[in-house]
Each structure stands twice: as C-alpha cells, then as structure tokens.
C-alpha cells in the first residue's frame, strides 16, 4: 500500500498499482491510468468503466468478465478488443477498483 500522484491527485495504490480507495478515482485519474497501460479511452471504454464502478458500489467486489458480459450485455469479445490481453485486470485498474479476486 502506498501513496502516489496520478493526474495531479494523491491516490492510494497497492503493490501492483491498483487503486485501493474507491472515492479517490475521478475521470481524469482514470484517463491517466489508461494511458499508463497504453490505452486511449473511447466512449465505449468509459461505458464499461462506469458500469464496473456502479456494480462495485452495489456488490462490493470487482465484476468478473462473465458478470460484465451477462449483466452489462457487453460481449466478452468486445472486452478483449477494448482492453487487450488481460481485460479483467485492465478494466479494474482503469476503473480504480481492486484487482479482481482470481477465484481459487
């Protein structure tokens, strides 16, 4: 757990750079986080991120890819296009949510 500055805001992050405080996230912070992993956010990205943040608020945990595809109706294939290679992690990272708990 450490403090870092993203887009001029002080935010708490874990060892892997995932934000740990839900309320420290802003659109600007999200944009910078996306840039950190080489993503330029489109409206489509922003829809996914908004849904993820709302869902986290209700559920208290980061949605899995399956949850996003079934509940938000965004096909998994699109998630791989928007957030290449590791969509579950990348979405969580940009949305300022904890890394999805890899189920054991």
């Amino acid at each position, binding site marked *: 757990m450490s403090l870092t500055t993203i887009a001029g805001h002080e935010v708490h992050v874990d*060892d*892997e*750079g995932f934000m740990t405080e839900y309320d420290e996230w802003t659109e600007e912070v999200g944009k910078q986080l996306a840039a950190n*992993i*080489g993503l330029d956010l489109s409206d489509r990205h922003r829809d996914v991120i908004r849904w993820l943040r709302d869902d986290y608020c209700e559920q208290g*945990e980061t949605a*899995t*890819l*399956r*949850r996003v595809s*079934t*509940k938000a109706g965004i096909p*998994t*294939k699109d*998630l*791989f296009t928007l957030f*290449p*290679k*590791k969509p579950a*992690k*990348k979405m969580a*990272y940009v949305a300022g949510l904890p*890394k999805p*708990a*890899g*189920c*054991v």
Partner: protein
Amino acid sequence: MRHLLVLGAGTAGTTLVNKMRRLLPEEEWAITIVDPRTEHHYQPGYLFIPFGHYSPAQVTKPQSGFIPAGVRWIAADVDEIRPEDNRVVLGDGSALHYDQLVIATGTIPRPDQTPGMTGPEWRKSVFDFYTLEGATALRDALAEWDGGRLVVHITETPIKCPVAPLEFSFLADAWFRRRGLRDRVEIVYVTPLDGAFTKPIASKRLGGMLEEREIRVETDFYVEHIDNDDRLLVSYDEREIPFDLLVTVPLNMGAEFVARSGLGDELNFVPVDPANFLSKKWDNIFAIGDAADLPISKAGSVAHFAVEVFAENFLHHIAGEPMPIRFDGHANCFVESGDGKGLLIDFNYDTEPLPGKYPLPVVGPFSLLEESRLNHLGKLMFKTIYWNALLPGRDLPLPALMSMAGKKVPESESEEDLRKEALL
C-alpha cells in the same frame, strides 16, 4: 415440529444432515434431504480413473448408506424455491414446506456452455474428468493413445477442486514416462489465470513443477470456441492452440433451479455471507459447499470445515441469536504430483498457501507446499476417512478454522520476484 430441508446430498449436504440429526432433537425438528442420485461418488477419486489407479466401482457407493435414521430422503429433482412462501417445488410438482433451507446442490460442469465443446469430437478427442463417465471415457482413450499433443485446459474460474487440472498434468507426465511415451507427448497447460495458480507463492511453486516436467503453460487464455474440424482451442483474442487430445475443465455453474428461483449470481451460485453462509436475501436460507459464492476454493475440504462451523452457528440461529463463529475460508488440498508423491496446501480467505508442516508444527507429519511420499499416502488414505468419518459427520481431529502454527511466511525479498508484470 419445525423442518430443516436440505437440497443436495453431495459432500456438504450429506455431512450436514448427519451432523444436524445428532444435534437437533427429533421431537422438535424434522430433517429432509432431496437428491435424485442413488449413488454417492467419491469425487476426488475421479482424478485417478484415467490412469487406471482406481476403478469406477472404487469411487461409488449407494447413497442410502449415508442417510442416517431420522432423516427423510426424497429422490427427486428440485424445480424451484419459493422463498416468499417457504416452499420448495419438486420436479413432479409436489411441494415441501421448510422453516430453514440449505442449498447444497454444488457446482456442475457445463460443457454445453462453450461453443463446440460438445461437438463431434466430444469424448473422442475432447474429454473432461470431472464426471465418472468422462474420467472413464478418458481412461479408455489414454490406453489407446500413442502420443501427440495433450492440452489440459481450464475454461473459466471458479472451478471445483482448482488444483485437479494441475494434478492431472503431473500424473499424465508420470504416466507417459512410465510407459516410455513421454518423448512422443507434448503437454500444454492452458489457463485463464496469469499463472499456474491464483496465489503467488503456490503459483510459483506449482509453476516451477510444470516447468521441471517440461509442461508448457499458456496463460490468460479465455476460450471462445473449440474448432472440431482442425482440433483447435480458439480464444477471444484469437489465439489458437492445436490439440490431439484435449482434457478440458468445462465452465462450472450452480444448479439451474437456483437461477429460476432468483437466488443465483451470473453463474447460479448463491450469494451468501462468507462468515456464516446465510443468504444475502433471506434469513432462513443458507447455501453451503460449492453451491455458495464463497471467495475460496470449491472443494470438499471447504465443505467439510464449513459444515462444522454451520452446525454450531445454526443452533444459535434457530434460537434467534447471532451466529457466533465466523468462517475463515479454511481449505486444504492434497496435490498429487506423480511418481507416488504429493504436496499439501492449507489456506483461507486471507492467507495464501505457505510452506511449513501440517497439522502440527515441525513434526507435521505432512509437508506444506513440498513434495513428499507421505502427502501422497495421505491423499490415498483420505478415501477411507471420507467414507467412514467425514460423510457420516464424525468429528475429525482437524480444526475447522485455519491455524498459522507450522506455517512459514517467506522473507519479503522474494515477494518482488513473485509479482509479475500484472497488466502489460
């Protein structure tokens, strides 16, 4: 007379009715268990069937032998739960009233959920080993197989017994070596995770064991479909993995009636309080074992420890008191590694599998996260314990909650090595 109704007579449900029948006075509580299956399978034994170590008969016993006197068993399917009426509707349309309900219908492999999985190659070159039929068909296929590319694949997490595909890979490697076939077999381990296992220290150890055995690992692989014509696994990001023999772990889902009853998440698992298994929606419905959405392995050991916690808590719950014990997610699993050896892992919601000794510090006798002959013998011995002590709900000399005694937390210098480039 009040009524405890339990749906599902697998490990969790069967153990639970045995324990509760002893704890609840017969003149106050009736107990009913509903499950259409007439046989109880020792599911950890499925792993050994493809290699001929166990026969199907060795992992099967009549269900009736495990339902205690004083518990009514109804061999029927469940159609729907109507929580607002405290009723369960069975497949034949009849209904059962309950005061307290426990959903213990587990998790079910669903090959039908991946396009192409149950295509023309199903049980020809595409197999599962999480069913007795699948494990037996795979045994017959392996006996005839003279080499090529074996792909061991996990569709999506969570899965039941998450170490089983690793164990299968280790056992396959040893089996091919013994038969003098290993140099004609390429083994590839394909996972949606970013490593061999989810937790860093165990993932590194188990990943190293795959490497030592020259088993290649393909990570972050989400299968989109299986191409039957060219025998390919195809991922959402358009990677293709050819196979001659595919051993897949299909998507795991909870029972369909859970979804029909409005009680499930997107995979039909029941959202519960992880501390006490009470439904997040209804205060007289519990889900225990694999059927629940607990953030821990779906495994018999978890079901067993969970039932112990449940039994004590339930007596308080029905007395209108708060439930005193908080389940910690305790899991432990023997991991077969081939050549008569195995590992043991012991962990919970908060503590990842660590090296050390179990159950006693220093003397063990079992070694954690380390291969030993004794761990393998422990795994074999467990079958007898399962039939004779665990299912009948007898107390085992293992604490339900995890202990740190005997565990060694590695120096933090290694932590940096364990972390991967998580995102790029």
